[in-house]
């Protein structure tokens, strides 16, 4: 494995410099790009920047799979469910999956795994699935990483999909990595954008890394299926067509093939409001600016008025004003609602990492220099103890 710049081809345009996350590229005295082989991790990002001049060369013999990739067809959406309740991200994936299916001229399928879930399959068809693969078994009653992975792998081995999309939920991000390793294929985490490359027909999977400060577009050229987990709320939900027809394919798997070494003992619901933070369309978050625990009621009331969920900065959580499950940010939840209202939150990098991809951000802070205003759609400079009651009064009107 080696990387080099072909000096005769390099025109010194510096286009490659900003693409290197490792800081491995510098310009030499002779105005040619120079790549430090120790810093370089062979990610290939600079190759793309130098497409025009083809001055950068990575010599690598990548492993290629020995299976015929053209046998793999169709876009699959993993239909996450718990207690038979289909996660809303599934409908978002069906919408985006349809777009990809049209671009590729392939079919869109959903995969439903669980116990007593077969009756939910039609719902997936009405939302756009051409086919639904179902594994319905007693030993899939509670979600379990091992059993669910085995069921999904069995389906993949039999029906060979081209692409598998899964919601980047706590559940999806727990068991899909195992599936990818079992299949020895690539998996891109937490994507916020999907596309098909016009020429190679590969799935272009774009995702934030470095806490949202860097975006990376990732492909999986020589293995199948191409797998991605996808963040909630990035895509619109698929519309329901009550007349849609589709095919339901049930696969029976012997129970002893689905055995697991972990067991669910209990589930304790914890979120104080009924709205799930990661799935909420509107979130009102409070920070240290609230001053003390009882003032959180202001945030709660505003949230209630506009049907929002309640979030918090780490400072508010650490102060014990609200449980950790409400924390937004790098060490808390990553959220992407339509509307995020930050109340008395300064906008630390770590907090922004969890909410900066929200569609609309309203910041309320008394300090006009607070960094949160940098990413806000609308900012209100003022004392939250005056602004929030005024907002509530206007909304009630």
């Amino acid at each position, binding site marked *: 494995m080696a990387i080099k710049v072909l000096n005769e081809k390099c025109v010194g345009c510096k286009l490659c410099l900003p693409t290197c996350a490792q800081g491995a590229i510098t310009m030499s005295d002779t105005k040619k790009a120079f790549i430090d082989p120790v810093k370089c991790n062979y*990610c290939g990002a600079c190759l793309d920047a130098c497409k025009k001049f083809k001055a950068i060369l990575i010599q690598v013999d990548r492993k290629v799979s020995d299976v015929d990739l053209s046998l793999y067809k169709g876009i699959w959406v993993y239909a996450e469910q718990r207690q038979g309740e289909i996660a809303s991200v599934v409908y978002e994936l069906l919408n985006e999956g349809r777009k990809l299916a049209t671009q590729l001229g392939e079919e869109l399928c959903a995969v439903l795994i669980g116990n007593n879930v077969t009756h939910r399959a039609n719902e997936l068809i009405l939302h756009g699935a051409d086919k639904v693969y179902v594994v319905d078994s007693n030993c899939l009653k509670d979600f379990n990483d091992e059993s669910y992975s085995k069921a999904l792998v069995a389906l993949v081995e039999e029906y060979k999909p081209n692409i598998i999309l899964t919601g980047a939920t706590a559940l999806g991000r727990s068991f899909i990595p195992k599936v990818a390793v*079992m299949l020895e294929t690539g998996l891109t985490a937490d994507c916020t954008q999907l596309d098909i490359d016009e020429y190679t027909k590969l799935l272009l999977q774009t995702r934030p890394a470095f806490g949202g400060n860097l975006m990376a577009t990732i492909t999986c050229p020589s293995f199948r299926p191409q797998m991605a987990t996808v963040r909630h709320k990035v895509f619109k939900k698929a519309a329901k067509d009550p007349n849609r027809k589709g095919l339901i394919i049930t696969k029976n798997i012997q129970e002893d093939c689905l055995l697991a070494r972990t067991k669910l*003992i209990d589930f304790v619901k914890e979120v104080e409001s009924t709205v799930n933070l990661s799935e909420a369309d509107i979130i009102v978050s409070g920070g240290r600016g609230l001053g003390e625990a009882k003032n959180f009621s202001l945030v709660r009331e505003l949230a209630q008025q506009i049907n929002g969920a309640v979030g918090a900065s780490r400072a508010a959580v650490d102060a014990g004003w609200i449980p950790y499950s409400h924390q937004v940010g790098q060490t808390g939840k990553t959220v992407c609602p339509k509307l995020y209202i930050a109340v008395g939150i300064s906008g630390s990098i770590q907090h922004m990492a969890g909410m900066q991809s929200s569609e609309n951000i309203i910041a309320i802070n008394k300090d006009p220099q607070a960094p949160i205003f940098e990413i806000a759609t609308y900012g209100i400079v003022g004392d939250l103890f005056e602004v929030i009651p005024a907002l509530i009064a206007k909304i009630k009107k």
Partner: protein
Amino acid sequence: MNIVVCIKQVPGTTKVAINPATNTLIREGVEAIVNPFDVYAVEEGIRLREKFGGKVTVIIMGPPQADQAVKTCIGMGVDDGIILSDRAFAGSDTLATSYTLAQGIKKMGGADVILTGKQAMDGDTAQVGPGIANWLDIPFVAWVKKIEDVNLAGKTIRVERMMDDGYEVIQSSLPMLLSVVKEINEPRIESMRGKMKAKSYKPVIWNAKDIECDPDFIGLRGSPTLVNRVFVPVRSGKKEIIEGATVEAKAESVVNKLRAAKLIN
């Protein structure tokens, strides 16, 4: 009890920006640290040893300079550290990383409990932990916020796993792997004695051959994913500061805008 903690060395900040003068990517505060989530895993490993006896070893795949991260953990009270380092590991995606770490753990003779952080601060995928468990063919539980009970004789463990809307209590057989969230504990700081030990501590370094890696599964060659493009996102914030003579006027203006955009009723 034999405990292994996987730690990653990451840049001390995730702040990245383009330097307009040189057009290069700059990372402020480039000093490397132990991935913040992994510090909780290290702490939990030490607590398990304090309760059940045995040994805690950290393992890290990275350049030889990763010994700084190992030293931090030794300072906290970890017994030993192993670095997997080889040019052939460069370019690893999560499939190759988890394979390599699994090979290292096999060479160590396995473990009763393997701990990882929830995710790394830079790559952010949270895929390495479940991957290692699969290569080792052991069960795993992600997002653990509490270890309720360990039954060494019966070879079982009971943990609480964070979900989006609450937590699950899960029982697993041992050996197993778990990834921890920050709620699990309050990590200790390095002790004076630990720091002294860390100063002269030299971690074991193994290369690809030492841990019997199949060259088809490591580094760029063993990585099915390819990073095609890396770019700094453009912030779409309109950055409009609402003007108004009174608080009421400002509030009215915002509420009108939100209603016009159909964001609220």
